């Protein structure tokens, strides 16, 4: 009966001291009775393998001991929906921060494509683990209180929102799309130099009489002339498709996603240039011009990084929207 002793010792090590002797004595009797029943069936003493089978049938010591321990879950069914809701929000925030971290890192290290991914993963994993752990500990503590959070029981249906609205994205109106077409049309005209709306004006540089400051596009924009033009035309097409309403909704979302993906590539190439505006002037010292050149390009670099973050967010949002809006397969009709 060495196996039974070892089995009971394992359970005893996991049960509370005050109850231990009582529990083990009762379990010993149950196991002995079971073995005697088997011996009566076979007409001989049980082999060690047969005793092991009896013990296996009884359950793992961890499981048996846990059943004596009362509550065997961290977060119960009453609290679990709230726990899961908070967990999703926390992870979404952590993921968003990780994406921004990754994009900014990638933009600041154009020569090292792995830097952004590494930074995003490095930001996500520890933050996610810490947040999940902290939330689980809080939920487990709340679970063990007799008083539940009041808002779960004392909620008022009248306080629910009258209409469920997506809080972040306001639906685009026809006016939005028309304004988008006009704005991007003007940009296309400027980009193709059909319209001279470029005003080389930098307000924070005090110019004296006889001084002149000129800002010109750097050579990278000649390289990216056609890609940028194509992006703008695609944007106009997206707005035009949206004007037709639901009929071209999927096409508009698909083109939007493709445009944003292409924008990411263009931004990536642009960021690698490191110089986007060439500053020149007359009647100004070379170091003053260099300072203006540095300031303007630094501002543009920050602007391009922000645009990249926006483009990544839009790609993620468009991907989710396409997935959400795809036609659901109908359940087969019963025969």
């Amino acid at each position, binding site marked *: 009966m060495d196996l039974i002793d070892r089995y009971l010792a394992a359970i005893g090590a996991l049960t509370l001291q005050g109850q231990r002797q009582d529990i083990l004595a009762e379990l010993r009797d149950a196991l002995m009775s079971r073995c005697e029943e088997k011996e009566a069936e076979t007409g001989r003493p049980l082999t060690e393998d047969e005793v092991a089978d009896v013990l296996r049938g009884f*359950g793992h010591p961890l499981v048996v001991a846990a059943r004596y321990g009362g509550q065997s879950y961290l977060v119960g069914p009453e609290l679990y929906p709230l726990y899961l809701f908070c967990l999703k929000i926390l992870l979404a925030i952590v993921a968003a921060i990780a994406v921004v971290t990754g994009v900014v890192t990638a933009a600041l290290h154009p020569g090292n494509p792995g830097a952004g991914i590494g930074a995003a993963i490095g930001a996500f994993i520890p933050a996610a683990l810490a947040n999940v752990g902290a939330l689980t500990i809080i939920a487990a503590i709340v679970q063990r209180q007799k008083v539940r959070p009041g808002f779960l029981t004392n909620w008022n249906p009248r306080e629910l929102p009258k209409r469920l609205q997506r809080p972040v994205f306001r639906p685009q109106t026809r006016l939005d799309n028309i304004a988008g077409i006009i704005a991007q049309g003007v940009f296309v005209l400027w980009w193709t130099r059909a319209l001279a709306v470029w005003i080389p004006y930098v307000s924070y540089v005090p110019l004296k009489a006889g001084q002149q400051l000129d800002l010109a596009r750097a050579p990278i924009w000649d390289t990216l002339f056609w890609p940028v033009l194509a992006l703008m035309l695609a944007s106009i097409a997206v707005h035009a498709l949206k004007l037709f309403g639901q009929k071209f909704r999927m096409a508009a979302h698909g083109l939007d996603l493709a445009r944003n993906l292409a924008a990411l590539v263009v931004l990536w190439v642009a960021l690698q240039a490191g110089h986007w505006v060439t500053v020149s002037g007359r009647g100004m010292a070379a170091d003053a011009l260099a300072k203006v050149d540095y300031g303007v390009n630094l501002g543009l670099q920050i602007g391009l990084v922000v645009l990249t973050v926006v483009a990544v967010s839009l790609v993620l949002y468009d991907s989710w929207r396409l997935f959400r809006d795809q036609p659901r397969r109908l359940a087969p009709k019963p025969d």
Partner: protein
Amino acid sequence: MPVEDDLFEKLRLELRRGSLVLAVLGALKVERYGYTLRKVLADAGLEIEESALYPMLRRLETQGLLTSEWREEDKRNKRFYRLSPDGETLAAQLATEWRAINASLDTLL
């Protein structure tokens, strides 16, 4: 489409789990120890794992529904359980509830 076997088994276990406490209370109108209690339940078609039965007996005793006593039988110490007065009252109430649920279900099934 036929219901999958594991789904049926899961739902069947859920259905039975809720009724086991009542079955144990019912069987302990007569004094029994754990092993004989399990056999009585099994003979009635209500199999229960021993690793679940003994903790349940302890819990019901803590809740004041059972009383227990260690006594020697067949040259071994055994713990005998039976319903306490509170347990008898509660078992009767639960039995009434069970029959009402049964009757309601019969009208639906």
